C-alpha cells in the first residue's frame, strides 16, 4: 500500500511539474519543482480523486492547513495518514 501511494503521488507531482517521475526528488519542495499555486491546487485535486479522500487545504494559508506540503515526502506522508484516517 505504502509504495503505491508514493508511486501515485510521484506520478501526480511529476505530471504537474512536467518532469519524469525519476526526476522528482523526495526532498524537493513544490517550488523547487516549479509548481505554482494553481499547480498545487490541481495536484491536491488529483490526489483527492486518485485516493478518494478529502484533503484539508486552504490556499490562503497552506501552513495552517493540516496537510504538510513542504516537500514531496511530506505530501506522501500526509496522504498516507489521510487514507488511514478516512478509509482505515
Amino acid at each position, binding site marked *: 500500500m505504502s509504495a503505491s501511494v508514493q508511486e501515485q503521488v510521484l506520478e501526480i507531482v511529476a505530471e504537474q511539474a512536467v518532469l519524469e517521475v525519476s526526476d522528482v526528488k523526495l526532498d524537493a519542495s513544490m517550488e523547487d519543482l516549479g509548481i505554482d*499555486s494553481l499547480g498545487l491546487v490541481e495536484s*491536491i485535486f488529483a490526489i483527492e480523486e486518485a485516493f478518494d479522500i478529502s484533503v484539508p487545504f*486552504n490556499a*490562503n494559508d497552506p501552513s*495552517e492547513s493540516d496537510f504538510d506540503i513542504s516537500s514531496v515526502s511530506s505530501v506522501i506522508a500526509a496522504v498516507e495518514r489521510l487514507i488511514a484516517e478516512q478509509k482505515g
Partner: protein
Amino acid sequence: MRRVVITGQGTINALGQSAPATFEAFREGKCGIGPLDIRDVDRLAIQIGGQVHDYDAQSEFNRQEISLYDRFTQFALHSAREAIGQSGLTFTGELAAQSGVILGTSGGGLNTQDENYRAVYEEGKNRVHPFVVPKLMNNAAASHVSMQYNLKGPSFTVATACASSNHAMGQAFQFIRAGLATVMVTGGSESMLCFGGVKAWEGLRVMSKDACRPFSANRNGMVQGEGAAIFVMEEYEHARARGAEILAEVIGFAMTSDASDIVMPSRQGAARAISGALKDAKTPASAVGYINAHGTGTAANDKTECAAVSDAFGADADNLMMSSTKSMHGHVIGGTGAIELLSCIMALKDGVIAPTIGYEEPDPECALDVVPNEARKARVDVVLSNAFAFGGLNAVLALRRI
C-alpha cells in the same frame, strides 16, 4: 469635456434591500454573512455566504415576470426601481433615445442554469421551460431594465469576473462624458449562491469556512455574496437644469490588464489602474481621502492591493482610509463594484466611512488604515473604488463630493 454626476442609487444585498438600509448597516458595521440556505448545502464544504434573506419575488413580480426573470435580473430590477425612482427621471422622446443601460455580471442567470441542468442531467427530464435561454443570458438584466424604463440608447452587459460592475460603470461614465449619452443606468448584479455556483468556487480552495476578514493577519479567504446595485449617471448640466439631487460626481476611470496570470493578482497592474484613474480625474493622490478596496480577504489579494496602493500613493498612502465592505456583504463577484460604490457615496455625501469588520490582527503586509471594525466620521473630498478581477483585469473609479 462634459461632467457626469450620480442622481439615483438602489440596491439589494445581504445587508439590506434599499440604499438607506445598506447605509445603516455600513454605519453599524453589521455582518450580512451567515449560514447558506440553498438546496444541497449539506454537500458543500463552504456553507456560508452573504445571502439575501426575507426576499419574496412574488411580492415584487407577477408569475409571468418570474418565468422570465432569473434571480440576478430580479435583483437588478429591484435596484433599478429604487435608483430611477430617486432620480425622478422618466424616459420619453429624445431623452429615451439618448439614455441606455450598462450592467456588469459574471455568472448571469446561474440559478437558471443550475436548476435546468439538474432537471435534464440529475432528474433525467427531456424537456425544459421555453424561456431558459432568455432567462439565463448575461444581458437579460440590462435588457429588462431597458424595456421597463424605455431606455433606447447604448445598452449592453460587461462580464469581467469580479471587475464587471466597475468596467460597466466606467463605460457608462465615459459614454456620458464623450457625449454619446445623456443618462446611463449602470451598476451590476449577481446571484451565484446556488449549489453549482458555490461548488465551483470551493474547487479553487480560496474560500473561508467561517468569515471574511480582509487585511487581518488571520484572514483565511473570501466569502461569496449576492445582490445588485444600480445607479443613475447623468450629464451634469442636464441634472442641474432640472434641479436634481446630486449624490456625487464621477471624475475618473481607468482600466488595465496584468497580462500575467489567470488568478494571481499583480501589484503593477493594480497600481497602474489606480494611478490611471487619478490621472484621468486630473486629481493629485493627496486629494484622495478614502478607497473602497477590492479587499477580498484572500492572502494574495489583500497584500498585493496594499502594496499597489503604496506604490500609487507613495507617502500619501499613510493619510488615507481604505476599507473592504466585502467583510459585511460578501464578494458579490460581478455585482460587487456596484454595491461597494454605495460606500463611496456614503463617504462623500454623509461623511461616514464604512468599516472593515472582522478585523482581528494587524498584518505588516497590509499596514494601511483599514478602518477596522467601526465606521468613522470623516470629511472626504475624493474617493476611489478598486476592482481587480481574475484574469488580471483591473478597473478603478474616482468620485468627488459635490
